[in-house]
């Protein structure tokens, strides 16, 4: 099986951008070199090379089962790669994970806490294991982080009774309990209401401003577009695109969106004219046309073919289309 990724992206690597965070020294916060992980007969992750520059906010995109979590677990030293190597803040993992991990906060595979303890007690237990937290600071740090994620009012209720969103907030709190150089958030907005999603966005923004590197995996593409400086798109365990967000988006703009009820006819007509055409991911019935004849010519072709063109506009390249295109091309 070969993954055909657009030439524009396949060779792109993450260049250390001029973003904040040069204060932290190491130019690369996390690095994957030919990472591969096999579970039994399933290849979860295959040949991933990735560099996350210090100070970047990397959005990791991919459909369910594309290997995002497995990649994150290998970067954190939780899972041993079948082949390849990983580096975290300049230390090889899992061998030297203990040197890097105190400065890494992580929320992986959803929040994990004990139901019979309150949110505060759960966090105290997490805090006790944090190497960079002095014992005398634990109570204050827990109180402060609960406030930061908006859980101060529910802090002393049992975790058992928490809503999904509150659980997610507590997971976020555990990752942020001490100041971090790198924060890894696996699907942090799962189960959050709009206010919660805004809070996550705000927290990511604060981390970024403070010079920390953030890796955030999400299937909410708008979220990534709003908060990230860099993007990595995974599909079926391979990395199909990486780069900084502006250049990825730029590479995606060269086309037209045709809003029409005659989607099938439009696609057929445009493909006959030598263009790339596919159904848009938006809710309105529309077709994205690329690499075809110039717009006026394309539209007159469509009209002659009997397509009822309601609207035609320059394609607003957004991550959603890029993502849809990158992940749907194989098959």
């Amino acid at each position, binding site marked *: 099986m070969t993954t055909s990724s657009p030439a524009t992206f396949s060779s792109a690597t993450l260049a250390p951008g001029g973003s*904040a*965070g040069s*204060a*932290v*020294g*190491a130019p690369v916060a996390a690095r994957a070199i030919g990472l591969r992980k096999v579970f039994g007969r399933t290849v979860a992750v295959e040949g991933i090379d990735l560099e996350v520059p210090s100070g970047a906010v990397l959005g990791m995109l991919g459909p369910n089962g594309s290997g995002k979590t497995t990649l994150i*677990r290998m970067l*954190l*030293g*939780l*899972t*041993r790669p079948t082949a390849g190597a990983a580096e975290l*803040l*300049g*230390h090889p993992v899992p061998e*030297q*994970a*203990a*040197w*890097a*991990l*105190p*400065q*890494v906060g*992580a929320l*992986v*595979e*959803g*929040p*994990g*806490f*004990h*139901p*019979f*303890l309150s949110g505060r*007690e759960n966090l*105290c*237990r*997490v805090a*006790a*294991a*944090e*190497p*960079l*937290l002095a*014992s005398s600071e634990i109570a204050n740090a827990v109180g402060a982080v609960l406030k930061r994620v908006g859980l101060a009012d529910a802090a002393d209720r049992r975790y058992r009774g928490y809503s999904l969103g509150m659980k997610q907030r507590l997971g976020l709190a*555990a990752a942020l309990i001490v*100041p*971090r*150089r790198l924060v890894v958030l696996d699907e942090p907005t799962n189960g959050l209401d709009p206010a919660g999603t805004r809070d996550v966005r705000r927290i990511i923004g*604060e*981390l970024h*401003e*403070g*010079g*920390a590197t953030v890796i955030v995996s999400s299937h909410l593409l708008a979220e990534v577009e709003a908060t990230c400086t860099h993007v990595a798109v995974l599909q079926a365990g391979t990395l199909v695109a990486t780069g900084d967000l502006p250049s990825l988006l730029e590479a995606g703009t060269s086309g037209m969106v045709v809003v029409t009820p005659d989607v099938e006819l439009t696609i057929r007509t445009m493909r006959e004219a030598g263009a790339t055409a596919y159904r848009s991911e938006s809710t309105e019935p529309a077709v994205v046309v690329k690499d075809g004849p110039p717009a006026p010519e394309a539209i007159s072709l469509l009209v002659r073919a009997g397509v009822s063109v309601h609207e035609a506009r320059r394609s607003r390249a957004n991550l959603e289309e890029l993502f849809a295109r990158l992940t749907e091309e194989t098959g």
Partner: protein
Amino acid sequence: MTAMTESTRAAALARTTVPTAAPRHAPMGRLLAAEARWVLRRPRTLVMLGVFALVPVLIAIGVAVADDTPGPGSGLIGAIAGNGFVLPIVSMTMALGLLLPLAVAMAAADAIAGETAHGTLRGLLVAPVGRLRLVGMKAFGVLLVATLATTAIAVMGLLAGFAVIGGADGQLITLSGTTLGLGEALARVALVVVWTVGQLAAVGAVALAISAYTEHPLVVLASVLGGLIVFGVLSAIPALDWLQPYLLTSGWTAGVDALRDPTPYGGMIESSLRALCYLGLGAGVTVHRMLRRDA
């Protein structure tokens, strides 16, 4: 303003990273305290300790009620009559048969498999708690449960023995017919507590090893209880007598030896050595697995 302090902090953190130095860890004492708090806050641990404390009380009541009718109770239970000091030792010996191993298996099941199932093991590993330290922390928690459960039975046994049965003037009448003073009697009870905890440590080590291999706490419970039953069946088959020295359970009545005078220590020493072998095996497998386990 906040951004400034955050970046200064990050820079300060960066300076503390010296690759050649040993990695920083949370103080072990703090980890053990957190583990103890976690174990003792778990409702099932508390319920279990409460139920265990009732065991000697129930035996005491049973003996007191049956006291008037001297029947076939000439065995150990019979020896309790009129002799409160015997109660804790007999209770511990009876509980060691199934109840105490069950408690230890439960603690071990929660310790690793349970944490995995809750997704909390990942959190500890990412903190990071070193994998070896994690095993130490978990072993401590299991040992704590074993000690508390055994002590609960011993203490309630003493109290119930005095309250319900009466203490033969504060003395222990041994099975050999001699009498021991209060201090000596308490020392005997303490000896059995220590010996019992030693046996439970062996069970706990094996249970932890199983716990390290699964994410289903029930598997641990089923394995330990199944193992105990199989050991019981094996030891009951005369043709398999040669197996006896290898079965952990075969020396589990040795605690009663403390009721004889002078105490024959042979049984307790032999079973303790056997427990040590199981402990080493269990600990070795647990460490081996935890150093490699994906989380």
